[in-house]
């Protein structure tokens, strides 16, 4: 009884349980790389480097590239 009275102020927000790193890692590696590839195509493809030849990718995302802060031509 005394013990339960001793900590009335401790009503913290429920802190979520930690997710084990080993469980996150495979998701983080696979999807992390996938997301970075997407960002590369929006941000840099056919600018400094090119995987696909031509100008079409660059021209298509031209405005987004400028407005999202990536260097563009």
């Amino acid at each position: 009884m005394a013990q339960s009275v001793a900590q009335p102020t401790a009503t913290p927000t429920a802190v979520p349980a930690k997710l084990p790193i080993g469980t996150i890692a495979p998701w983080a590696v696979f999807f992390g790389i996938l997301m970075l590839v997407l960002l590369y195509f929006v941000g840099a493809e056919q600018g400094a480097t090119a995987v696909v030849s031509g100008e079409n990718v660059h021209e298509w995302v031209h405005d987004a590239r400028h407005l999202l802060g990536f260097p563009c031509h």
Partner: protein
Amino acid sequence: MNSAIVRNLLVRGMLAGLAAGLLALVVAYFLGEPRVDSAIGYEEAHSHAHEHGVEAVSRTMQSTGGLATGVLVYGVAFGGIAALAYCFALGRIGRFGPRASALLLSVAGLLAVYVVPFLKYPANPPSVGDPDTIGKRTTLYFLMMVLSVLLAVATVILGKRLAPRLGNWNATIAAGAFFVLTIGLAYAFLPAVNEVPKDFSGTLLWQFRLAALAIQLTLWTAFGLVFGFLAERVLAPKPAAAGGQEVTAGATPVAR
């Protein structure tokens, strides 16, 4: 079980990124596009050797479909990355619930991914920037982004390590000072890029950069709020309201 939580958070992160991207797209279209058009107007009035053959993509498509593709893919990609970072941060960054953690993470993301690189290498409208230096500018921009994100992660880990010794307040100040100092060093040692043409409108440049900042502010704020809402539902499948109602109903059946 845990793997399912990671998957659910990842999917919701990408969806929240898509939703945030839609809002950012509205800002980009109404605040950003007029400035891009003005800058292209300047470019065409001053083009010396700029070859104007057949345009591969028309201006109309660039400013609608092209802009939408870029901003939405950007939103989804960073939404996914932020959701994965959230999985690591959850329960490890202090006594923050799911929603507060999401908002803190997106503020950190805005700063580390965008604002810090922006202060050194700001967004430029068309006709600002020498095409010959695109390789150098791209390398420097991505280098600054990676450096900023790595230092932000290091700052959080440092803060956590110092907290037991210094207390939360002082540990946060010390870690923040570490971040400011190391970023300051990076700013000082990385080469500057100033390729604004001499007679390019200062007002236009300012407005373009403000619009670029507004897009990111919208994107990351919306992401933090939407993802926080979704993440809380993933992490606490029983809504708090329903539990409260059960208790209330048990205590005073007449109330409902």
